[in-house]
């Protein structure tokens, strides 16, 4: 394989920050230090060299909805966003509840521009009735089990899944925490805005109720629970208390939940429809605080492509979800680091090494940039500004809620297993 | 047409009617209406918003004075019958109220200034939707020329050829919050090269 040096950047990883060149040879970091030479040079002047990002929450839509996204297009969007690994959510058609489907996704993923890590369903068909073959999926490398898009509503079944996962090393059960019975028919956050717009709501309590329940189940079973896309102050408080009590829980927040509020829904543009929904300003403040004090472990995109046709339906009839892979890091820099809510190191931890650890892929992602580590790296220009153009994104779909927004921070290069998959802001394949 | 355009660049050209002139013109027009129709028994005076209703009321009072006949007075808004809908902002200036059935009667439309004739065309349409008058006549205080339709007035206070850039300003006690009636001709200070419209 090739040899090149990433020159002139500031290396930031879990061990701290220092100015250093990084020599990559045969897919691994060969040397880190000053004045390194190679025939091939990747310019990192003024930029940050960091372990590639890891997304715990990506909807790649393949198989079943390839008109919205494919593993190839989704992984290209991921690479452009600085990600070297994404956890593919299981709500494909068919869902990832069967070894055959998981094998197929992993096989296609070997050609992708980032590592595609398959999640697996907790229950068959994500129907919440019977356990999926978690052991068989675990044998294929699945560590994150989730019915994402659906909440496991039965406390009894959730308990069984947690108990069973204790027999699967490294496994974590990830919950989409929203009580269905309280959200039926709801399309946005329940509050003054939904009342004014006449759009049925999804109350914040629907999330906190499940978070509270599953914290008790984690304590009861001793199994790890991860909460997907937390969005309310009450949920963050519950997780903070649970961590203090030593309960094995982790959680993530999506960029839209720390950048947007339910007021955006007043445009009736379904680009702003997502589950859990955009909340009020106090909830946004609370998740920002949760990131700052470490209650929230990871920033995860909930990248959810939808075709223009489906997003052109009226708000209540359009599917929930928004693109995230190409904007997440820039939003973290613009909305969290720049105003001083997070340090740069905290933001990168939430984007890279914390989620790598949760997903059980910290042997190859999110590692300290040191000789011997697989070369999964991102070179990020923190000062570059750019304006989000939905049509210019690499995703097959265009449903970003940030159209026209100018963000600070852009990925310059992404290196996957030593391959330069993004060079000067462009995907190389 | 009239009363519009408080353009600072405009200057007073001439006073067309003083209050006394106007009183005499009303009296004369009232007499002409009665003379033409051999009495006032079948006459309905219909004033076009915004100043026509006041003028129609004055004519009715004059007729009552010398003829002893109470002539019915109506008001007409022609906004919804205009042919320039969509070309400029249009708002109804008042209600359409004609207190008698116009069928078989003589409707005298009353307005302050006759210019292009388009308002009168709209008024004739609006009138015929109320019924089928025996005839429709037209009374105006000023005919300023500039017709764009084959319409002429039956009763005219004064013929006043004007240029397009000029403005006939009518101010009545009832409608314009002035102490006494005036009708004035205003125009731009320089008029060289302008075409006479009438």
């Amino acid at each position: 394989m090739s040899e090149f040096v990433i020159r002139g950047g500031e290396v930031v990883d879990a061990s701290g920050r220092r100015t250093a060149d990084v020599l990559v040879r045969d897919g691994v970091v060969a040397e880190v230090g000053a004045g390194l030479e190679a025939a091939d040079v990747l310019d990192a002047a003024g930029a940050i060299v960091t372990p590639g990002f890891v997304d715990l929450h990506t909807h790649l839509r393949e198989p079943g909805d390839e008109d919205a996204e494919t593993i190839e297009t989704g992984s290209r969007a991921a690479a452009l966003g600085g990600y070297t690994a994404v956890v593919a959510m299981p709500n494909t058609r068919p869902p990832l509840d069967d070894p055959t489907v998981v094998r197929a996704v992993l096989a296609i993923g070997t050609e992708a521009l980032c590592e595609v890590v398959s999640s697996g369903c907790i229950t068959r068909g994500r129907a919440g009735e019977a356990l999926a073959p978690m052991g068989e999926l675990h044998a294929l490398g699945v560590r994150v089990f989730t019915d994402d898009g659906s909440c496991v509503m039965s406390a009894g079944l959730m308990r069984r899944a947690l108990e069973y996962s204790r027999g699967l090393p490294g496994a974590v059960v990830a919950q989409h925490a929203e009580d269905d019975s309280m959200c039926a028919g709801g399309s946005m956050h329940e509050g003054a805005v939904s009342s004014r717009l006449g759009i049925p709501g999804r109350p914040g309590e629907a999330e906190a109720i499940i978070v509270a329940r599953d914290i008790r189940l984690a304590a009861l079973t001793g199994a790890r629970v991860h909460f997907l896309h937390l969005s309310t102050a009450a949920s963050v408080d519950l997780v903070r208390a649970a961590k203090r009590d030593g309960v094995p829980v982790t959680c993530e927040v999506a960029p839209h939940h720390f950048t947007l509020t339910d007021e955006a829904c007043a445009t009736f543009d379904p680009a702003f429809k997502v589950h859990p929904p955009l909340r009020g300003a106090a909830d946004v403040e609370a998740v920002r605080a949760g990131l700052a004090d470490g209650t929230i472990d990871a920033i995860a995109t909930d990248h959810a492509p939808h075709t223009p046709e489906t997003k052109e339906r009226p708000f209540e009839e359009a599917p929930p979800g928004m693109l995230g892979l190409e904007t997440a890091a820039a939003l973290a820099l613009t909305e969290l680091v720049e105003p001083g809510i997070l340090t740069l190191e905290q933001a990168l931890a939430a984007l890279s090494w914390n989620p790598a650890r949760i997903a059980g892929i910290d042997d190859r992602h999110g590692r300290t940039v040191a000789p011997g580590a697989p070369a999964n790296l991102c070179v990020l220009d923190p000062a570059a500004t750019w304006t989000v153009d939905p049509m210019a994104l690499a995703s097959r779909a265009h449903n970003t809620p940030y159209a026209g927004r100018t963000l600070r921070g852009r990925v310059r290069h992404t290196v996957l297993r030593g391959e330069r998959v993004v060079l000067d802001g462009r995907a190389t394949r | 047409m009239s009363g519009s355009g408080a353009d600072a660049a405009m200057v007073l050209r001439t006073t067309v009617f003083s209050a006394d002139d106007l009183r005499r013109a009303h009296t004369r027009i009232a007499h002409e209406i009665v003379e033409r129709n051999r009495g006032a028994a079948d006459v309905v005076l219909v004033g076009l918003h915004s100043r026509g209703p006041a003028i129609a009321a004055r004519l009715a009072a004059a007729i009552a004075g010398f003829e002893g006949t109470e002539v019915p007075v109506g008001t007409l808004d022609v906004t919804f019958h205009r042919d320039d809908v969509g070309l400029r902002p249009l708002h109804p200036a008042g209600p359409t109220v004609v207190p008698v059935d116009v069928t078989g009667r003589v409707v005298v439309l009353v307005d302050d200034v006759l210019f292009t004739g388009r308002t009168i065309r709209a008024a004739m349409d609006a009138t015929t939707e109320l019924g089928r008058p025996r005839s429709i006549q037209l009374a105006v205080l000023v005919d300023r020329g500039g017709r764009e339709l084959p319409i002429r007035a039956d009763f005219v206070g004064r013929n006043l050829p004007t240029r397009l850039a000029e403005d006939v300003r009518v101010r009545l006690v009832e409608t314009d919050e002035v102490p006494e009636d005036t009708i004035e001709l205003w125009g731009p200070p320089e008029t060289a090269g302008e075409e006479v419209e009438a």
Partner: protein
Amino acid sequence: MKHLLSIADLTRSDLDELLDLAASFLSVTQRETPKVPALRGRTVVSLFFEDSTRTRLSFETAAKRLSADVMVFSVATSSVKKGEGLRDTVATIAAMGIDAVVVRHAAAGAPRRITEWIDASIVNAGDGRHQHPTQALLDAFTITQHRGRDLSGMRVAIVGDVRNSRVARSDVQALSMLGAEVTLVAPPTLLPETLEGWPCSSAVDLDPLLPDLDAVMLLRIQHERDASTRFPSLREYTARYGLTEARARRLRPDALIMHPGPMNRGVEIAAAVADGPQSVIGEQVTNGVAARMAVLWKLLGAGGDVV
């Protein structure tokens, strides 16, 4: 003003102008020839994704009395049933060269989205639970016809399935803009979870309010929007909130009884009350045509933006 999507988009002077226009058009509709040529050559399309014969006929009558050409896009027999998307449907209609689209849709915000896709004026004829601005206009017009333009100090109760009601959302805004004090009356499960930002108050008991009301508006229970799961039975609802004859007798003799229709006689309003002397329900229908003429004229005729 290009579109009418929500009462919230109107200023007080817009509302006054529309009420003035409605009065002008009411006199037009009462003439022997109840028609004016105002919108000759303009084309108005009615596009109803949700059934409503009443509102559709009212709009079509209004457009015809203004001499506009009226096209009816029947969703039930159209390509929409064959899976065509909203954007394609309206783009097709727009391509025919039309001036206004009157839109009714079961989902909130659909008319607003359409304004982003085509150039024609859009009139919201009811979108989900969100807004029904012409209904509010005709309701306000009906009350002002009886009580004059200034409704300061007037007490109006809107009773029933408020949470599902676009009429309530629009009426509260229009009537409060004219000075009325509006109280929403319903079991808590039929009110929105919060009334923050609503210029009105709420109550769970109708009876104490009755003697002080200037107008009472009854709303239909919207079974199609899950309302019936929100209280135990219709019998219990009628017993607590129905405008029965006994309750109607406790109203002042000059209090107006209103209903946006369609009525469920014997549920939210007793048949005898609906037909009684204080009912202005029939006037609401008549005024609806005048109010919609006012809206179509204001959007298509009065503006002068065509030049």
